[in-house]
C-alpha cells in the first residue's frame, strides 16, 4: 500500500515535470491526461470515490478533449494561413 502510494506520487511529480519541460504541446496535453488518470487512482486510495469519478470524467475526459480541440483549431488556423499565403504568391 505504502509502496503504491510512493509510486503514484512519484509518477505524478514526474508527469508534472515532463509537462513543464516538453516542447511539443500535444505530448504535454497527453501527459496531462495521464496525470489526471493517476490522480483519480489516488482519490480512490484516499477513499474518495466521488472525486475519483469526477476527476476521471472531467479532468481526464472533458478537459483533455477541450485541449485537443484547441490544438486542432490552432493547426487548422495554421493550414488556413498557409493556404492564403500560397494563393497570394
Amino acid at each position: 500500500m505504502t509502496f503504491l502510494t510512493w509510486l503514484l506520487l512519484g509518477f505524478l511529480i514526474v508527469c508534472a515535470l515532463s509537462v513543464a519541460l516538453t516542447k511539443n504541446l500535444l505530448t504535454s496535453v497527453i501527459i496531462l491526461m495521464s496525470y489526471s488518470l493517476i490522480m483519480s487512482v489516488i482519490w480512490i486510495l484516499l477513499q474518495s470515490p466521488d472525486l475519483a469519478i469526477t476527476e476521471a470524467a472531467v479532468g481526464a475526459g472533458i478537459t483533455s478533449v477541450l485541449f485537443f480541440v484547441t490544438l486542432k483549431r490552432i493547426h487548422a488556423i495554421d493550414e488556413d494561413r498557409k493556404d492564403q499565403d500560397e494563393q497570394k504568391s
Partner: protein
Amino acid sequence: MSASLADHIYEVASVILFGIGFTTLLLDRNLIKKIIGMNIMDTSVYLFLASMGYISGRSAPIGDGTAPSAENIINPVPAGLVLTGIVVSVSVTALMLALTIRLYHRYGTLDIDQIVTLARKGDEP
C-alpha cells in the same frame, strides 16, 4: 526532518506539484503551457485538501442506509470542497482555451510576450 517528511508524504508531493504548476503558470510564455500549469496547480491544491480528510483505516463516506458511526468514516468535508473546485477549474480552463484560440487567430502565435508586443505595435499582425 526526513521522518516528518515521510509523515507528510501527500502534503510534500502536493507542495512540489504546486510549485511546478505555479512556475509554469507564471513564467512559461506559451499560453497552452500556462493553462496546463494552472491545471496542475489546482489539482495539487485539491490533493492537499483531500489528503487532510483521510484517516487511515477508515472507509469512504458512503453509508449503507443505517446511521453510520463517526469512528469508521473519513472526513467528508474536503471531498465536497474538492468536488466544487474541480468544476471551477474546468470552467476556467475552457475560458482560457477559448481566449487562446481567439488570440492565435489574431496574432498567429501562442507566446504571450509576443502577443502583447504585437498588440502594442498595432492591431493587425
